[in-house]
């Protein structure tokens, strides 16, 4: 069976996921003991977009999300929005989103038919941690006049939270994969 609407699903899912990342920003922060920074679910959305939509649609979804923020909608966690978020020293962590989703999606496509928790976790780490930090840390170092090592140490407080999110993303993607078989990254 071929349904004429199949070709329409991809572009609409891009819009759905852009909105999904926004909606994840208002989820109550995940409580983690010991860690001083609040953990929001927004980068979880980056990992999920890659895992579930694949590289191209995932990247488009996050680019669209950033566009909504830039246009002036306060959709970042904590109700931040507008162009000013791209002027701050941590903007690199935001700019990374589409690239992170693309990396996670690129890896996800390779493991989808043989999906297992550890594979999903590795995909999520690649985009949601490696790529995000690869943009965020040099950006912070440049804008803040720091060395890479200093910027990296300062960013490390987010690492435990990001690992938790990668675990959640891998679990969630595994369930959605079985619960919504129409999805193909």
């Amino acid at each position, binding site marked *: 069976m071929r349904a*004429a609407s199949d070709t329409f699903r991809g572009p609409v899912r891009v819009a759905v996921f852009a909105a999904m990342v926004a909606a994840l920003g208002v989820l109550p922060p995940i409580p983690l003991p010991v860690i001083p920074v609040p953990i929001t679910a927004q980068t979880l959305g980056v990992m999920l977009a890659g895992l579930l939509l694949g590289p191209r649609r995932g990247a488009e979804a996050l680019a669209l999300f950033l566009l909504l923020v830039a246009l002036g909608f306060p959709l970042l966690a904590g109700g931040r929005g507008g162009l000013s978020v791209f002027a701050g020293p941590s903007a690199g962590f935001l700019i990374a989103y589409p690239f992170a989703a693309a990396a996670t999606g690129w890896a996800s496509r390779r493991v989808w038919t043989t999906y297992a928790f550890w594979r999903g976790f590795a995909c999520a780490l690649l985009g949601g941690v490696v790529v995000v930090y690869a943009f965020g840390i040099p950006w912070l170092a440049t804008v803040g006049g720091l060395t890479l090592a200093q910027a990296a140490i300062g960013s490390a407080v987010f690492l435990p939270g990001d690992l938790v999110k990668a675990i959640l993303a891998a679990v969630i993607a595994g369930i959605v994969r079985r619960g919504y078989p129409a999805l193909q990254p």
Partner: protein
Amino acid sequence: MIALDNVKVRYGVRVALTGVSTTLSERRIAIIGDNGSGKSTFARLLNGLIIPTVGRVSVLGLDTARDGAQVRRRVGFVFQNPESQLVMPTVAEDLAFGLKAHGVPAGERAARVEATLQQLGASALRDRACAELSGGEKQLVALAGALVLAPDILICDEPTAMLDLRRARTFMKVLAGLPQQVIVVTHHVDLLAGFERAILLAEGRVVEDGGAADVIARYVAASA
């Protein structure tokens, strides 16, 4: 005029519809049956949203498998969920959206939007935000979105399932007044006054086909 020739639809291993051969030419046709009987698949076959696995569906002489896009230009479709059908911020913009997709020049769009809203008695909704409409109003706008494209045939898949009884009745009255051929999939069998023909589906097959009053009466009796 729609003709189905030995149509079978399979989703993976599940057979949704099989052995359907019929011609749909009456002005008002109802498709009825239990959940999962194949009604929604039947409706989607009629505008090429679904293409048969086996067999052929021809609409106004066009094969839906080959000329899907052209078929959809001639056949309007109203879905069950009013939420999913409106995409643009305001009613007028939403109606104009379909016209734009069909390549209607910008200068003509406003007049056609206005005429369609007037035909449905919904001119007051023109500048309202879609998100703020009630369920019944949304479904009326979804209908307007289909009609503004001037289709020859209108298919409705359970258009009243999410409306309260009063809104459902109003909606069916609006349908009754349309000049087009109308084919409605519905559970609201008590709202089918004026329908000429009804087709009863069960487990993917046509089990009854005939005058609307007779088929509905037998379906209601069998469900009791």
